[in-house]
């Protein structure tokens, strides 16, 4: 009896070994750590051309190195890389996947499948759309602050939410959620190679707008800022305004913003009420007047509110007319607050969205004027 008990305990213990899922012994130094990869259209009969940036440990300090490979699917391309490199590519630290415009125009869902399905790449990868000719050209640039170009791109995108707010920070799982949702269309950050005096550089450049999973256009960085206001994602950044059109500009730094989007249903008609509340500080004042007075600040606030209202209204109009794709997520908002109305109109949303009426109100408060209470007096 005792032997039987012991045997069954052992059997149970070892049967657990069969249920451990996917793991394997592999030494760190036998892996090539991938920091990011770019997907272009294939050239030699293959569908995809992958440019993979990995960490080259043979150099000190380690730097990024590019490996180019082709394949009929993404995974096929990744595996074909083994014909060129002894070390297996390791995707757990991959931060960025850059997709070329051409691929994006044909649809992203097939491209995202392997990245989302495989166990190594994380769902927090940042997909980026390259506005240039190829996706690879972004990774071919020299990083300015990081060792690896892909890390530079990834960190720039995630940093931008708190201090720039001119590029959407969309991670792979969020992109997949947007793709799956009927009431929100996909947006992704866009980037390009910019010429500057010292040479070429990578630069984030607004938003790529999608209809379903196909790229249909772009928003520039300023428009992206107002898009983020509507999506309640403008956590930082600046608002530049001039209360007096003749005078120089005043810069407000966003300390926090809260946007409420509420649908108002009247019969068969829905109106979106967008209320933007922004807390700012007066961060730069190039004008000759002293605006740090109760009346002066009111004036600045008023001027910014006006700017916000017109810009946001203009952006909505532009998206409705030009793209007709609900990148603001108005459909999901209606679904949340008026599910009955949504159920009735869900099927017609694509034709209803361009006709949707929106009213925008903005409230801006200036809470302080940083460390100065007046501007520099020129004697």
């Amino acid at each position, binding site marked *: 009896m005792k032997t039987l008990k012991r045997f069954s305990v052992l059997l149970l213990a070892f049967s*657990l070994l069969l249920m451990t899922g996917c793991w394997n*012994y*592999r030494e*760190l130094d036998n892996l090539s750590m991938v920091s990011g990869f770019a997907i272009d259209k294939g050239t030699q009969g293959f569908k995809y051309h992958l440019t993979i940036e990995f960490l080259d440990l*043979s150099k000190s300090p*380690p730097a990024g190195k590019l490996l180019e490979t082709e394949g009929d699917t993404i995974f096929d391309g990744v595996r074909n890389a083994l014909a060129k490199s002894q070390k297996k590519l390791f995707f757990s630290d991959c931060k960025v996947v850059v997709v070329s415009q051409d691929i994006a125009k044909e649809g992203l869902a097939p491209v995202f499948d392997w990245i989302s399905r495989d166990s190594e790449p994380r769902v927090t990868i940042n997909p980026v759309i390259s506005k240039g000719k190829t996706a690879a050209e972004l990774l071919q640039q020299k990083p300015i602050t990081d060792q690896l170009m892909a*890390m530079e791109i990834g960190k720039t995108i995630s940093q931008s939410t708190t201090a720039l707010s001119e590029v959407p920070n969309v991670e792979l799982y969020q992109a997949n959620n947007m793709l799956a949702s009927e009431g929100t269309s996909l947006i992704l950050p866009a980037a390009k190679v910019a010429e500057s005096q010292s040479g070429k550089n990578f630069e984030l450049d607004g938003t790529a707008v999608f209809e379903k999973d196909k790229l249909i256009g772009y928003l520039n960085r300023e428009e992206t800022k107002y898009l983020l206001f509507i999506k309640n994602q403008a956590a930082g950044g600046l608002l530049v305004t001039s209360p007096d059109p003749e005078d120089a500009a005043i810069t407000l730094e966003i300390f926090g913003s809260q946007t409420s989007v509420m649908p108002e249903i009247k019969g068969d008609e829905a109106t979106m009420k967008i209320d933007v509340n922004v807390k700012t500080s007066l961060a730069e004042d190039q004008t000759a007047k002293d605006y740090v007075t109760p009346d002066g600040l009111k004036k600045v606030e008023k001027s910014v509110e006006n700017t916000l209202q017109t810009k946001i209204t203009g952006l909505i109009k532009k998206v409705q007319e030009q793209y007709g794709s609900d990148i603001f997520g108005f459909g999901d908002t209606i679904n949340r607050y008026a599910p009955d109305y949504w159920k009735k109109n869900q099927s017609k949303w694509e034709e209803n969205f361009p006709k949707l009426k929106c009213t925008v109100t903005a409230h801006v408060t200036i809470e302080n004027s940083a460390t100065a209470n007046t501007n520099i007096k020129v004697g």
Partner: protein
Amino acid sequence: MGTAGSDGSQGNYAALTKKLTDNIELIKTVFKNDSTLVTRSFESQFEPNLKYCIFYSDGMVNNKILNEDIIKPLLEYRPEKKESDLINALAKQIIFSNSVEITTEMEKIIQGIIYGDTVLFTDGYAEALILNTKGWSIRSTSEPENEKVLKGPREGFTEALLTNLSMIRRRIRTPELKMEYQTFGTRTKTQACICYMEDLVNTDVLEELRKRLESFTIDGVLDVNYINEFIRDAPYSPIKTVGETERPDVVVAKLLEGRVALLLDGTPVALTVPHLFIEHFQSDEDYYINFYFSSIGRILRLMAFFVSTSVPALYVALTTFHQEMLPTSLVISISMARQGVPFPTVVEAVLMLVVFEMLRESGARMPGMMGQALSIVGALVVGQAAVSAKIVSAPMIIIVGITGISGLMVPRIKGASIVTRFALLGLASIFGFYGYMFGFLVLMMHLFSISSFGIPIMSSVYTNGAQDRKDIAIRAPWWKMQKRPKYLSPNTTRVSVKGGSK
């Protein structure tokens, strides 16, 4: 227990006779070839008929007592008339000795001679006197090297049982402290003493201890561990189920908690039972310093056990199975450090851990003045040179360093830590985190399954009642620890504070 084991050297001796020369011959035959036996025959200055002979073991007696308090009075003794019962008169009136026993038993006489007593034969009498002249040199009391404290009593046990008992008795001045002698070793006849507080002790534990002490015989006991391995629970487990200490204050504290202590002659180590797992982490100093600091120390020690058993296994599991769990920058620096290292991570880990254990062991065993050489070899050759020669990677040195240092933090559980560390490392190197968790669960199951003299060693973890939990990870202030743990003692009132509890 082996007071009269059949294996002993005692046999049937001839009976003593009234003739002194016969008795002398008899003793000399028993101690044939024993050069330390001293025979001294003398007679009274005034009555040449009063012939005496004393036997003692050289080096075991106090010569001054022997000369001045035994031989001198005998030489100067002048009976006024013929004494009818000389032996009794000697014992009662003549000899200056605190312990005199009249006997005819050869067994007792031989034991006496062996253990520092002096045996006096008188011509014309078949009885012998056993006189207490014990006086051998013992080590003076000093602070135990293994259990140093910054604050608190510095006295440590010595090799002499009586000295040790006196240290305990000095601290507990109530008759409830009971000390029972027992003898171990059929050949060494080593004396031991069981100490307990009569009104606090858990009688089940005491009975169990007595039962187990009677369950074996052994020819000799040189240290309490000889006994420990016979009486302990879970004999194959690396986890201690019997406590060991060299400090009288620790023994007294345990007695006051209702535990039983066993002291053995010839060793400065005392055993205490029952021994719970948490006692590995309780230092006597915890109770002598501020409770905040002692709690911090206690928590650090508990963490150190976890760290020293788990860190190499976790490192190997993370770097060879679950690289995705490491932050990117850490992966970069580890894989950079591993460039060019010829061995797999687990070989590296085992190699360095073994080297560390070697350094530790040689540090403990070698003469003190060679310490400098060891630290140079340890730090420079094994550490720096091995890294720059690319035999091991730098992170591994850090891991082994952390493991070693935290292992030394809880020296009482050292043995168990080492065994657990290598077991977990082996499992982690084959199965990754799964193996580590498997090993950890087995360790937990093992800990929760064993008990010490009927008390589960993890009692302090799953006990009910706030009082029992005030001395585990956190040492509560003394005025809060009002009760003894109820699994240790039936009499739980320890502290009472005037005006109710604070």
